[in-house]
């Protein structure tokens, strides 16, 4: 076993373990953290496949941003475990169908030799000085520029729609315009009154 193979098997074991724990962990926060571990190890495997841009982007986008917000939400939920398990039997048929589909798909991939996958040409090793990131950027902005821009516009529309759906102005909101706050002058707030000193009346 070479060192590279060792690294692959190590990552693969951790990945399978983490993925299993995502669905078996009782505490949702633990499950989310195991999902983070699964993302990190699969990024490692991708980097080993010389897809370093995808690997780093997976860490950057999913681990660094999406899962943070996910944890943020999961941690604030007050989850009742017994109530979560209530609908088990009613969800079982749908779940079983999805599971069956996944098993078939996995079988298609894993049983590659029987389905003629072995006849597909092996990918050539990348030449010296080949940059995965640069190549992806070149393809995205030249050959696939229209699909890429289209996807970007669809995402933008989704963002605008999501904001429009959730945005509500509160009636009695105490919003303060920072520009107004900054431009306040002394004269607006304090009035200096000049008064002559008064004599004290009586007493000691």
């Amino acid at each position: 076993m070479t060192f590279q193979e060792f690294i692959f098997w190590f990552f693969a074991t951790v990945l399978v373990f983490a993925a299993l724990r995502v669905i078996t962990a009782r505490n949702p926060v633990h499950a989310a953290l195991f999902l983070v571990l699964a993302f990190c190890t699969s990024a490692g495997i991708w980097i080993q496949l010389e897809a370093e841009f995808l690997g780093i982007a997976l860490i950057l986008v999913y681990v660094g941003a999406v899962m943070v917000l996910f944890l943020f939400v999961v941690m604030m939920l007050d989850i009742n475990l017994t109530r979560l398990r209530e609908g088990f039997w009613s969800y079982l048929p749908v779940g079983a169908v999805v599971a069956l589909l996944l098993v078939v798909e996995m079988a298609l991939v894993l049983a590659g030799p029987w389905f003629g996958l072995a006849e597909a040409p092996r990918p050539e090793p990348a030449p010296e000085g080949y940059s995965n990131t640069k190549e992806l950027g070149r393809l995205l902005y030249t050959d696939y520029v229209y699909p890429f821009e289209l996807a970007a516009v669809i995402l933008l529309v989704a963002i605008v729609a999501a904001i429009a759906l959730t945005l509500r102005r509160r009636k009695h909101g105490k919003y303060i315009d920072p520009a107004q706050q900054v431009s306040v002058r002394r004269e607006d707030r304090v009035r200096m009154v000049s008064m002559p000193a008064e004599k004290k009346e009586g007493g000691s």
Partner: protein
Amino acid sequence: MLDTLLAYPQSLLGPLWPVAWTLAKILMIVVPLMLCVAYLTLWERKVIGFMQIRIGPNRTTFFGISWLGGLAQPIADGLKLLVKEIIVPTGANRFLFVLAPIMAIMPALAAWAVVPFSPELVLSNIDASLLYLLAMTSLGVYGVIIAGWASNSKYAFLGAMRSAAQIVSYEIAMGFALVGVLMAAQSLNLGEIVKAQQGGAGMFSWFWIPLFPLFLTYLISGVAETNRAPFDVAEGESEIVAGFHVEYSGMTFAVFFLAEYANMILISMLTAILFLGGWLSPFPASWGILGAPSFGWLLLKAFLVVSSFLWFRATFPRYRYDQIMRLGWKVFIPVTLVWIVVLGAWMQTPLWIWWNS
């Protein structure tokens, strides 16, 4: 000479040699870094002391030599924290409670793998080092979140929530600032980025001039990313005691502390590399020894940036939380977006003079 020196251990270790040599190189980076972190705490206390017309720490000393007063302070602090008891709160998740400080310091140290100290001196000269750095700095938030949740304390949890939202927001502005850098340098490799800033005009050929708005955005986002004052609402002593690390004591607290300072040094090093010309000299090359590029310049620049972090802390009052969010989303992100477009247009014209082609 190095080859002959290394020949003996190489023959001794055989196939394990690459692993041992890489570990040795990692130690060669991490040990000086940890020393820098320790003395940065002393420097911070001294600088803030000077600004407030105090002396700062001046008692602890080595072997009773009085003019070294204060220099042993970081060692004394470290020793004190090392021997203190680690208290795990009731109902806390033990494993995650201990994991959190490790998660905080791991990315702060791992990011140093791609930082170039000179044209040849870099642990791992990978092509996508800028992306790697972004990924590593974005992982730092997990330490804070896990600490806040595992502590089983309301104050810690509030601190973690604040920190998570803040770091995720400022990361976007930071990423856009880096997009500007990679556009100007035409490369993701940190060493190539420094080389792209080499020009005849000394400090005027560095990227801080054409990318000035991005430079400021990066610097300020860096302060926010490391949870330093005036953006330190995650710890906000006057509001939520000490935020996410309120339940931590002894060495577990010290590791959070180390991570924060290691992150500060990392951000200042990156600012020096990306915008201030790295190891290049600020003077034109014709000035002899002053104009020669060297590691000393990089250290000096990083030191100046890190000192400005301390200066900010001593000068500015803490931001209000909604103002932090406004600054990140409504000021920095539009500024960086506009400047990227301006930069793209500018680079197509002959007015762009930052390529030493």
